[in-house]
């Protein structure tokens, strides 16, 4: 046994300890044990009046997770639509993930510089797993293998012939651990919101797809199959209605279309470089001023042939996307229930294929509306393609005219209120109003919708206001904060971690 020295004094030999570094599997298993352990702590403290400080600290950690989950649950109860709480829960999960991610990044940078793995955890003789560097007053470094300690001494520049090598190593590691912990605490306030929003953005779309798929599968297996096996007509009908409502409502083409609608403004704005129009003054300007700015910007951009080509290519892709066929779930459903439809018809209920047709019809209307919007946007490109050499004033007027194409909800409202003159004014020609009215009267909504998508003006104004309001924080300040945190962490780790400072008492 080697004799250990502390400040030149030989130390009593240590009793062999069972403590050692914990393996990855043990650490993960420890995470699984946290919930039952928290429950045990609560019952033990309230029932038997016994709990140690470590138990209470772990209970506090578990309780924080519980708080985040409670906040997300209360938000879920507050939003009545199915599927609406999903972003809340994603946000809650991202928040916890961001809290765990921040120290990993800082510790990773410190590992690169000093070779010290501050994430290490040890398994104590009591069988409890603790972070090795959590308490600066108690770091049981003997759990590190001898070779690792020697390597750290070499890396940290502790001379070989120093009799106090072990205590010097302890001091240096304590300094590094304290510095890392303090820096983590300073960064956590910025990093947790920023990382949480970034993580949410990354996982939102995949999580929504997964959620829809799981919902469809769950309804099919929990509701449809038992109903079919029970051979009870009432139950079958209820299960069918539920299936159709839920799968069409959240699962398939409607969701894809909704997602496409959400993505479209960003894509188009990026193609036309419209995000540069949004600055600090955008929200203070009136609607007319905003429109003027957009028109000016488009006037400059659309003279450029490459921008026009990019726009046309983008719109072509979007048209293909809106004309897509949904997943074959509906047809599969039809095949499953074909034998049942006859019985249902005899019972006098809405048949599954009728319900499907109704949903399909609504979906078609939405698709047509989307395609009409794309058509309006395409006209912009065509205007500059064909009549680009017109006089500037005239071209500008045509551009504005093109941007102010009628917007569906507005016209519909005008017609419902009986303000046909105003509707005629907005739409431009009496014949067009009459044609649309005829289509509505005869119930041919599809054709009416074909003419009336969102006007480009409304489309751009809404998208840019939303960008200015909602995304300015996420797009501008988030990147700024990320850059600030990254640069300051790099500087801190490179120049300050492990450095010997002169203390204020002059002790060195």
């Amino acid at each position, binding site marked *: 046994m080697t004799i250990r020295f502390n400040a030149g004094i030989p130390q009593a030999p240590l009793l062999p300890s069972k403590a050692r570094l914990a393996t990855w599997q043990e650490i993960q298993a420890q995470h699984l044990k946290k919930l039952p352990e928290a429950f045990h702590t609560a019952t033990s403290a*309230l029932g038997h009046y016994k709990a*140690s400080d470590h138990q209470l600290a772990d209970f506090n950690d578990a309780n924080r997770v519980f708080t985040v989950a409670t906040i997300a649950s209360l938000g879920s109860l507050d939003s009545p639509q199915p599927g609406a709480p999903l972003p809340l829960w994603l946000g809650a999960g991202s928040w916890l993930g961001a809290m765990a991610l921040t120290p990993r990044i800082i510790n990773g940078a410190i590992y690169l510089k000093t070779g010290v793995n501050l994430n290490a955890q040890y398994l104590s003789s009591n069988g409890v797993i603790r972070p090795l560097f959590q308490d600066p007053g108690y770091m049981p470094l003997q759990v590190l293998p001898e070779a690792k300690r020697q390597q750290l001494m070499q890396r940290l520049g502790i001379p070989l012939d120093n009799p106090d090598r072990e205590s010097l190593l302890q001091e240096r590691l304590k300094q590094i651990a304290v510095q890392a912990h303090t820096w983590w605490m300073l960064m956590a306030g910025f990093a947790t*919101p920023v990382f949480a929003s970034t993580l949410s953005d990354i996982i939102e779309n995949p999580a929504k797809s997964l959620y829809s798929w799981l919902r469809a599968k769950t309804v099919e297996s929990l509701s449809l199959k038992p109903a079919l096996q029970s051979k009870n007509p009432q139950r079958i009908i209820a299960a069918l209605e539920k299936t159709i409502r839920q799968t069409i409502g959240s699962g398939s083409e409607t969701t894809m279309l909704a997602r496409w609608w959400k993505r479209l403004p960003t894509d188009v704005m990026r193609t036309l470089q419209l995000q540069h129009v949004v600055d600090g003054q955008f929200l203070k300007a009136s609607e007319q001023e905003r429109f003027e700015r957009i028109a000016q910007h488009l006037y400059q951009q659309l003279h450029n042939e490459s921008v026009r080509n990019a726009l046309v290519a983008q719109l072509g892709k979007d048209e293909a996307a809106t004309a897509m066929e949904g997943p074959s779930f509906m047809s599969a459903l039809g095949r499953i229930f074909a034998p049942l439809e006859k019985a249902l018809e005899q019972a006098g209920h809405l048949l599954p294929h009728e319900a499907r047709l109704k949903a399909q019809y609504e979906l078609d209307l939405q698709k047509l509306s989307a395609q009409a919007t794309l058509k309006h946007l395409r006209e912009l490109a065509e205007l500059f393609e064909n009549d680009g050499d017109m006089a500037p004033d005239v071209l500008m007027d045509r551009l504005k005219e093109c941007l102010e194409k009628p917007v569906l909800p507005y016209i519909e409202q005008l017609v419902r209120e009986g303000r046909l003159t105003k509707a005629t004014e907005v739409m431009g020609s009496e014949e067009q109003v009459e044609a649309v009215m005829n289509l509505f009267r005869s119930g041919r909504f599809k054709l009416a919708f074909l003419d009336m998508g969102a006007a480009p003006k409304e489309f751009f104004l809404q998208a840019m206001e939303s960008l200015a*309001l909602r995304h300015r924080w996420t797009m501008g300040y988030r990147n700024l904060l990320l850059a600030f945190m990254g640069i300051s962490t790099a500087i801190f780790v490179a120049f300050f971690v492990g450095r010997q400072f002169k203390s204020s008492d002059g002790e060195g």
Partner: protein
Amino acid sequence: MYQAMGMVSGMPPSMPLQGRSLNWGPMPFEPPQVPVYPAYTPYNPLPNPPVSINQAIAQYQDLQRRRKEIPEDRLLDYTFLDKILQGFKTTFVTVPKTVWKGLKGEKDFTFADAMLVAKVPYYIGGAVLALSPFVGGNKAEGVRWTAAMLLYLLGSSSANFLINTAYRLRYGVDLTKMYRSKTGQIEHVYISSDFPRFDLLGPEEYQRLEKKLGVPEDVYEPDGAIREQLRRIIPSSRTLKLILANLCSAIGAGYIARSPAWTEVSDGLSKLSSVWKEPASTLSVLQKVEATLRSIAGAFRPVFENRFKMMDAEPWQRLVVYGWLAAIAASVGYVFLRGLPKKHYSSTGVSPLAQYALQHPQAPFQQILYPNLSAESFLTRGGRYQ
């Protein structure tokens, strides 16, 4: 441990321990000194307000001198105002100093310092969350986020206050009692379940707790019985506080702050400026203050009506509100009805160990435990420290 000490003094480990406890020779280490007489001197570092600048300087110098002179940990008898001022000092002086110490990684950085630095994310994160919607230009969302942050803090602090008050009323234990350590840190006496600072409590504190905790006066070693009960109160009260504080914070940030009526609050508060801009002749100052309070209450009323008016509330709202009230009632009920186990103390004044020792005078462990006392002195000593 005893075996290890036997090895140090050169005895073969195979020999029995019995009858050799007094022949150990020099002790290999100093046993820990447990202070018998607690250093109990109430000390208030915030003096009376000075009347002149010279007096202020003198008071400040005196304060610094006294602080340096204090050799031990002292209990603090802070008033409510003192506690608030201490909180400000901790936030704006002690925490930045500790952070600077931690950034340099100084040798005397303790676990208590790490706990202090762990408050920083709450300050910065709260400010980032509350301000970011305002920076993005979304005022309505900003009001709501700020409300969520404040309600989170309000929830946890009011739950702590409730449980502390309940324990103070029921058992007379002031769980917020603080001491100043010799290194200058302000810490709670009853914060640790494993190492509570009973050594700081004075004799009058023990006398007061004796009645409140229902410990008979003639029981053997009443201070030990009191400490035993306090050791039960600390973990159970802390657990109760953690549960209730997290629940109240969640209700504040997840339920009250989600009210749609927060958007109207700024409109309601904008009436305040008109109250104070009126010509002085129309309203007296008192009336202005009254109108101010009235409009503040009117601004916040829709929010709380929306969340707590159960007449036309949805079922889930009733579940949340009544569940929350039930949790509060259950916590207070726990303190008053089941805060401590009922103990049946034997009032003979002699410890069970001493009774056993009297019956078995040749038992070796008496000498191990009490080498300086004869068996009879257990009776004469009477339990309490003289």
